[in-house]
């Protein structure tokens, strides 16, 4: 018997554009500018030497006490509360209340998710270290988000966390699909958790040369410019997204089907992009979907706005004959969500496919790769049959996901 199609049945999102997928698609199509100097405590060096730019999201909506008891809410950090809000949105839409709890799984994408809160705790408890609260003994582990989620929502199949740097969200989707395909569960949530970076992480990424923006320090809204001649590094953006994957024979067409999902290791330890790995991942995913490059209508690129990353990715698309496909760069609007990037950008792609419109890449004034078919200026109306989502991560992970539209 053929394996059932795996479809996306529910989406929950949070980013600088707000909470909920309506704010995401509306903000993307409007090309809203949500970049500013980061203001959340722990994001700038205490000595005042930094003014990192990026995107921060509003506080999460209060969830009902029946769902999240007050005694739990008071111990949940920012990223954890964001995750619960996002899961709540996706859960309801996907109809998971009608699925047996032991047939539901959860894969959280991302590691070291609460770094900023650890820095703040070290500051808060300096001089009174004997009184560090007991929850500090478990919330620093990567089980925190998955464990909290399964304590609130009836997820009893499995719940765990995978780390693949900026490809974590995409790898979570790949693992969720694999768990359904293997028959382990019937529904599986892929949650790209918020990477709550501290100023130490930001300093490190700046030192790596990966993060901008020296060139647009005084113009935050212009700093993130994927595929533009004047790009000078990625800009961090707080993001979190949940995608509920289900069997099509149990849930209908949803937002579309995942027909190709490839992940390869390219042998890099650090931040270097690897065109060979990227091309292998894309080719494998297309092959799984029974497609060729010419079948892809839109590519949601990894497109970080780093010069090397953008150039290597553009070359990969060119080499595989994907020039006819429209290219969107969602980080130009929401920033780089790191662990959450793959899921929020896939959510954005699914929402664009449903809307029949592609968002423009912001700040793309002078494309360094003019042969790519960029969406510039205004949204592009398009009936998408097949979309391709790319996510790459430090440590040499390249992923490609192929989606067949629901229509």
């Amino acid at each position, binding site marked *: 018997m053929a394996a059932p199609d795996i479809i996306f049945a529910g989406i929950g999102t949070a980013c600088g554009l707000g909470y909920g997928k309506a704010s995401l698609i509306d903000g993307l199509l409007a090309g809203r500018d949500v970049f500013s100097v980061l203001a959340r405590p722990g994001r700038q060096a205490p000595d005042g030497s930094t003014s990192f730019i990026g995107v921060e999201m509003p506080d999460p909506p209060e969830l009902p006490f029946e769902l999240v*008891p*007050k*005694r739990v809410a*008071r111990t949940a950090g920012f990223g954890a509360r964001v995750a619960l809000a996002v899961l709540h949105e996706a859960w309801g839409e996907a109809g998971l209340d009608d699925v047996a709890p032991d047939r539901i799984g959860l894969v959280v994408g991302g590691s070291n998710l609460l770094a900023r809160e650890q820095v703040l705790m070290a500051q808060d408890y300096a001089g*009174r270290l*004997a*009184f*560090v*609260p*007991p*929850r500090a003994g*478990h919330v620093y582990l990567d089980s925190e988000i998955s464990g909290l989620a399964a304590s609130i929502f009836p997820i009893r199949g499995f719940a765990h966390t995978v780390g693949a740097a900026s490809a974590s969200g995409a790898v979570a989707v790949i693992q969720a699909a694999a768990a359904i395909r293997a028959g382990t569960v019937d529904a599986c949530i892929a949650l790209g958790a918020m990477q709550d970076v501290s100023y130490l992480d930001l300093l490190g990424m700046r030192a790596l040369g990966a993060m901008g923006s020296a060139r647009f320090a005084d113009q935050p809204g212009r700093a993130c410019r994927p595929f533009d001649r004047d790009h000078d590094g990625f800009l961090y953006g707080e993001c979190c997204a949940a995608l509920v994957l289900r069997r099509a024979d149990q849930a209908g067409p949803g937002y579309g089907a995942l027909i190709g999902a490839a992940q390869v290791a390219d042998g890099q330890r650090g931040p270097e992009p690897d065109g060979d790995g990227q091309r292998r991942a894309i080719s494998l995913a297309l092959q799984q979907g029974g497609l060729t490059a010419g079948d892809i209508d839109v590519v949601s690129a990894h497109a970080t706005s780093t010069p090397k990353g953008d150039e290597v990715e553009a070359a990969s698309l060119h080499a595989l004959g994907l020039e006819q496909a429209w290219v969107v760069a969602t980080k130009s609007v929401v920033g780089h969500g790191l662990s959450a990037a793959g899921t929020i950008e896939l959510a954005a792609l699914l929402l664009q496919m449903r809307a029949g419109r592609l968002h423009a890449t912001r700040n793309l004034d002078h494309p360094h790769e003019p042969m790519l078919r960029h969406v510039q200026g205004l949204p592009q109306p398009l009936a998408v049959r097949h979309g391709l989502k790319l996510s790459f991560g430090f440590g040499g992970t390249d992923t490609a996901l192929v989606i067949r539209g629901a229509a």
Partner: protein
Amino acid sequence: MESDDILSILIGQIREVVPELVDHDIGAADSMAALGVDSVERSEVLMNTLEILGLDLPMVQLHGPRNLGELALLLKAKCGGA
């Protein structure tokens, strides 16, 4: 500090850590376990109380009391013996 004052601190911390108990009558005869305070919450109540009392001692020394009244007496003894 009298043991009644310590009992008040303990009850205040229980209500802080478990806001669901804010309107619940809590007295010396109650135990945290019977109030539904879980083990991590109990540790937090004790840790917060120790900090307020200025006591730095291993948690294992607070095992034994069967209710909040006995716990307050034990903490008073620790304060006095410090």
